[in-house]
Each structure stands twice: as structure tokens, then as C-alpha cells.
């Protein structure tokens, strides 16, 4: 099954629940097979199947709730003042990996998904644009804001530690 592990990982990050993630992945494969005629040969298969998964998630109860929780100003994370200890300087051990995971969990879903597609799935801006059905300019600005938001969350966590 193509991309099974990656889709499952992505589904878990979206739903934050393994049972829901399993349902989501299963439904995605079922829809992909049913709707294979809508896939245009020569276009990006990965972006296509991720798009199915994401759209299925967004119409689920959890997905509707998650996208409804995005506040209007969530897109604009403030610029951070530079401190001596930046989140980047401390990413070494597992405990810090856990901190990044918690920070990712805390992000609004549209920031979390774009970071995962870009960094974990190593998708290009073009692929992300196809997956999320948004223009490349929006991919760049949203990705940039998502990174800032993650840095901000991490910095807040570092202050608490």
C-alpha cells in the first residue's frame, strides 16, 4: 500500500487519536480506490491521496471542531524578540523532541498540517499547494507563520522549564 505509514502518521497528528486515525486512513484508501478515475495521470499522486485524507478529516466531527477552533488572528503570530536561548539552540535530546511534539499538538490544525507536510513529509511548496488546494504564495506565508507560531509556543515552554 503506497504511503501507508506516512498517511497513518499524518492522520494521527490531525486527529490526535489513534482509533480515529485508523478510520481516517481506511476511509482514505477506500475513497482513493473508488475515486481513482478522478486522479489525473501525470499529476502528483502523493498530493492527491493526502488531499483525500485531509478533506475526509475536515468533514469529520473532529475535523469540523478543529477547524472551527481556529481564531481569526491565529494566522498572525507576533514577531518574537531575540533572546539568548532560542528554541533552535536546544534541540538535541529526546526530552526536547517531546517538547516539539507537544508544541506541534498545541498548534491550530492548519499550522500543524503545513509544518508536517513541509518538514516531515518533505513536500515541495508545489506539492503542499496541491494537497491543501491553496496558492503557492499562501503556502509560503502560512508556512512562515506556522514556524513563528511554533517558535513562540516553544519559547513559552522554555520559559516555564
Amino acid at each position: 500500500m503506497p504511503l501507508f505509514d506516512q498517511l497513518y502518521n499524518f492522520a494521527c497528528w490531525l486527529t490526535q487519536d489513534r482509533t480515529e486515525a485508523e478510520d481516517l486512513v481506511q476511509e482514505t484508501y477506500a475513497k482513493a480506490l473508488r475515486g481513482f478515475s478522478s486522479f489525473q495521470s501525470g499529476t502528483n499522486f502523493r498530493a492527491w491521496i493526502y488531499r483525500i485524507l485531509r478533506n475526509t478529516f475536515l468533514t469529520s466531527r473532529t475535523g469540523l471542531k478543529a477547524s472551527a477552533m481556529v481564531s481569526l488572528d491565529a494566522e498572525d503570530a507576533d514577531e518574537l524578540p531575540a533572546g539568548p536561548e532560542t528554541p533552535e539552540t536546544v534541540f538535541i535530546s529526546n526530552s526536547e523532541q517531546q517538547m516539539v511534539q507537544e508544541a506541534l499538538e498545541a498548534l491550530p490544525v492548519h499550522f500543524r498540517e503545513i509544518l508536517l507536510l513541509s518538514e516531515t513529509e518533505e513536500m515541495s511548496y508545489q506539492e503542499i499547494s496541491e494537497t491543501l488546494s491553496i496558492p503557492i504564495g499562501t503556502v509560503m506565508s502560512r508556512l512562515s507563520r506556522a514556524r513563528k507560531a511554533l517558535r513562540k509556543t516553544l519559547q513559552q515552554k522554555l520559559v516555564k522549564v
Partner: protein
Amino acid sequence: MDKWTGQIEAYVDGELSAAEMRDMDAHLRTCPACTADALKQVQFKRAIQSAGRRYTPRADFRQKVRQSISARPRRSAVWIWLPATAVLLLLVAGVVTSHIKDQRLALQNTYSELADLHVTALASPNPVDVVSSDRHTVKPWFEGKIPFAFNLPELQNPEITLVGGRIAYLGQAPGAELIYRIRKHQISVFIFQERALGHLRQSDSAMQRQQETFNFLSWSQNGLSYFVMGDMSGGDLSKMADLFRNTG
């Protein structure tokens, strides 16, 4: 924000045009501030990448989905599915081919890194951090030092002895290196978490290869990746691997 600062993000994402990339490379050679910024952003990307690889599907779920997919054509008209399946197979073949190329490269890198670790152990006067031939001493020593647990085989063959163990890092992931001796030869067994290895991860199937220097055998089991390396014959290596397979 000047021109360069604004482009660093696209630069580390590999999204600048070839000409812009060359300009940025030239600029970074002369600007420590931008170089430091680019480096920080690369580290940040890596941190997210590794944190993002978090969830692995259960084996029975994989099986369930596989079955549901293979059962589907029998329930509906097969002739509708045949062309679609053929196209899907072609696509999958394309994805798999490029994936295999990536994996081959990743495996080569993994091999080189592990060979370095193995040579370091061979050359070092103190090759291990915990010196013991008793698996009940070596195994608990790793507790709390690495983020997973593993089992060590009971050695019944008098030709094989456990020398000890130490912490090893592969692609920044911590793991265990166990050193054994078979006759006069030293053998390293590396154990890492499969998901922590990310892009270095080898395929699910067991893999054995002979290089100019060492023989190398790897496989994955219960979420852990095992690598056995030494200068003895493939048969001895397989013997060692079987001991772990039957224990893990």
C-alpha cells in the same frame, strides 16, 4: 528585513531558483549573521522533521486495510477495477523505484556511519562503557540511557562471548552498541528505534551485504532496527543475527 533575510526561509526549504541559490551561497560565504540564521532554520526544520515522525501503524491494522483493499474488487465488477489497478500499479512502481533509490543511498550512508562506529570500537583501548559478559548486567545498564528496551540473547555457543556495551548515535538517534567476540573476531550489534532513524531507516526486509571491509546484516523487528557488523563470514553474522531474532 533585507533581501537576503527574506530569502533564507525559501533557501533552507530548497525553493529558490538555481540562480538565486548561487547568489545566496555566495552571500552566505561573506555574511556570518545570515549563515547563523540559515543554520538555525535548518536545525529547526530537522527538529520538526524528527518530532513529526511519531506514530507507527499497528501490524493488524495494516493487515486489515490490506485485506479490505484486496477484498474490494471481488465485490464489484472486476473489469472496472482492472484498468484503474493497472494505472495504480504503474504509479506505485514509479514511487517505489524512486523510493528504492533513496533507500539504497540511505543504506549506504547508514553502513558508512556504522562502519565508523565499529572501527572506533575496534581501535579504542576502552571499546565499551559497561564491561561485562553477563547479559543481566549489560541490559540494565542501558535503562534510562536510551529511550527503548531490548532483549539480549542467552549465549549457549562457547565460541561467542559478550564483551560489553555502549551508547551509539546514528543520525542523532541514541541506541545501543553491543560488542561480542566470536573466536578472535569482534562483532558489533547496533540497536536503534526504527522510527527514530527516519530517513536512515532500512526496508522492512532483512538485508545482508558484503563490503570491502566488513560484512553487514540488518533487519527490523518489533519497532527496533538491528545492524550486525563484523569482519567474519556471513555465516557467523547470520548466527549472531538469529540469536537476536529469536530473543527480540
